[in-house]
């Protein structure tokens, strides 16, 4: 009697495992950037309730995502830093942008309200190189003639962990200041000559709020939700712009995607009077000749669905969907460049 029950339990357990395995096999697997993780998982939840197909996305960082897709352990990789066309070619990968976000400088200066301070790239670069050390420096005053700035010492705060946020910020400063480019440069982590490093958006936000005279930079969603004192930035067209969904989308729309081979385009410092200068896209990487065409097709179906239905959800989390023209271009890329994938 007893052994019969045990046998039944074993059968039940084994069949559960088998079915669970089958369900997992149908899931889309991906790995990479942490920045788009909240929106990818939100899309995945909605997609699963509609279609029954789940997404298994490991937010292990862009570097990890690139390694995983090259090792063929996942169906797609995600990176905040686009791969160069020649690297794509060498690895047999196709790249396309998925979602847009922005990085926002935040400050903590007594008597300065959110959005009141205006800075430009060269000034921010000088601050992060330790050349401007007081808030009442002539170069800051020149951009803010009406603001009463105190003589507080500037405490620059940077992201200590390697991140797409670091890449966009240092890339923007490199484009704005030749000296920054030659002495520091752009990467997911760089060697900052001054300031203190805090871990993650939350660390930077916290250090900036705690320290009098601090300046930091965080993802837009973070600045918005914590109601920090963000700054305006003077863009390439010479206009002071406020960070918001419209100015990010303006930057994405004014970019010349048509002539960017492999979508290798960094959205910082774009032309256009309304463009926010520290805007960036997060990218997806898939195989040009997928070893498992069905899996890649399933992934592309998910991305297609996200382009079509994901805009509102993205806006709720303060991400910015791609402009329509760009989405059409990406769909055309799928058709021509990915072998064996049918939508």
């Amino acid at each position, binding site marked *: 009697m007893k052994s019969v029950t045990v046998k039944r339990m074993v059968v039940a357990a084994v069949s559960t495992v088998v079915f669970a395995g089958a369900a997992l096999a149908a899931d889309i697997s991906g790995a990479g950037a942490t920045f788009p993780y909240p929106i990818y998982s939100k899309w995945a939840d909605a997609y699963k309730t509609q279609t029954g197909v789940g997404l298994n996305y490991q937010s292990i960082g862009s570097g990890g995502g690139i390694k995983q897709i090259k090792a063929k352990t996942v169906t797609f990789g995600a990176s905040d830093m686009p791969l160069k066309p020649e690297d794509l070619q060498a690895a047999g990968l196709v790249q396309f942008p998925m979602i847009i976000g922005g990085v926002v400088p935040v400050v903590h200066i007594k008597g300065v309200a959110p959005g009141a301070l205006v800075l430009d790239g060269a000034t921010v670069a000088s601050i992060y190189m330790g050349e401007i050390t007081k808030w009442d420096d002539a170069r800051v005053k020149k951009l803010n003639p009406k603001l009463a700035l105190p003589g507080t010492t500037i*405490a620059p705060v940077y992201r200590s962990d390697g991140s797409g946020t670091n890449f966009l910020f240092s890339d923007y400063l490199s484009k704005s200041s030749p000296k920054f480019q030659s002495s520091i440069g752009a990467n997911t982590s*760089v060697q900052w000559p001054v300031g203190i490093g805090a871990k993650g958006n939350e660390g930077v936000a916290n250090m900036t709020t705690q320290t009098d005279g601090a300046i930091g930079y965080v993802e837009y969603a973070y600045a918005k939700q914590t109601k920090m004192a963000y700054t305006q930035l003077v863009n390439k067209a010479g206009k002071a712009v406020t960070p918001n969904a419209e100015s990010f989308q303006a930057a994405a729309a004014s970019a010349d995607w048509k002539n960017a081979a492999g979508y290798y385009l960094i959205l910082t410092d774009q032309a256009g009077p309304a463009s926010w200068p520290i805007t960036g896209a997060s990218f997806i990487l898939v195989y040009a000749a997928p070893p498992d065409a069905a899996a890649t097709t399933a992934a592309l179906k998910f991305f297609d669905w996200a382009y079509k239905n994901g805009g509102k959800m993205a806006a709720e989390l303060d991400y910015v969907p791609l402009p329509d023209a760009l989405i059409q271009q990406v769909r055309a890329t799928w058709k021509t460049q990915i072998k064996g994938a049918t939508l």
Partner: protein
Amino acid sequence: MNTVAAISPKHAAGQRRRERLFRGATLGAALLVLALLGGVTLSLLIGAWPALAHFKLSFITREIWNPVTDQYGALAPIYGTLVTSFLAMLLAVPVSFGIAIFLTELAPGWLKRPVGVAIELLAAVPSIIYGIWGLFVLAPVLQRHVQPWLIDVLGPLPLIGKFFQGPPFGIGILTAAFVLAIMVIPFVSAVMRDVFETVPDVLKESGYGLGATTWEVIWQVVVPYARTGMIGGVMLGLGRALGETMAVTFVIGNAHRIGTSLLAPGTTISASIANEFAEAVGDLYTSSLVALGALLFLITFVVIAAARLMLMRLERRALGSA
């Protein structure tokens, strides 16, 4: 007589086989540890090789850490690791010693258990909690009240003054050392307490019987008897301080620079790895991070070997004097 007769030869053979099997299993378990250790060392060396071959000795003598130009030197993390651990032990060992002596020799019976349990609970708090506490609670307090005082009072002094200069960020080498000290106190004090408890009451009572004061009994009976165990406890704490990652990452300021001031931000080996490994692209970069891991492995190994050596020498001396 009856019981001996009850064991049949067949039974005895089965018994022997089981014993052999058990011996084999335990030997296998012990060898597994060695194999793991060998595997870890080997994979660290293979991973670190490109960086070590490229930078040679300059990897441990240069302060530069620049992913943009692919130039890496581990001096700043090595310095940060050693200094934070040293300061942490400087703070933690006397306090732990006090706790252990109080609990075993001085505390009234009703207080021993609650304090003992509280310390054991502290040891079980995950390190990320200490990190978050350090960043959100300790750092602002240090920044507003402690560091300005250090800068004003100790900063202008000759010699030690240069350790306490610069702006009060709240986080930095000193804050990391504070958090580490708080994290290792439970370990060190728990071991010390257990060691002090092994001192035979007869010895202590003999001391008191000869008219010794509590102070004399502690210093001349308890501490000499427990010395080796105490060093073991300190080394356990040091091992934890050297390798601690998350809590340090939150409060050290993560700058690949060596500042003379203890208030300046720095970095440690494990904090650098935790910060940068996930987004590290490029062979030399990842290899340099693995090489950092190998260095930490080496430092920990040297510390443990030194502790063993010290213990052996102490034991030999104790035998010689007996």
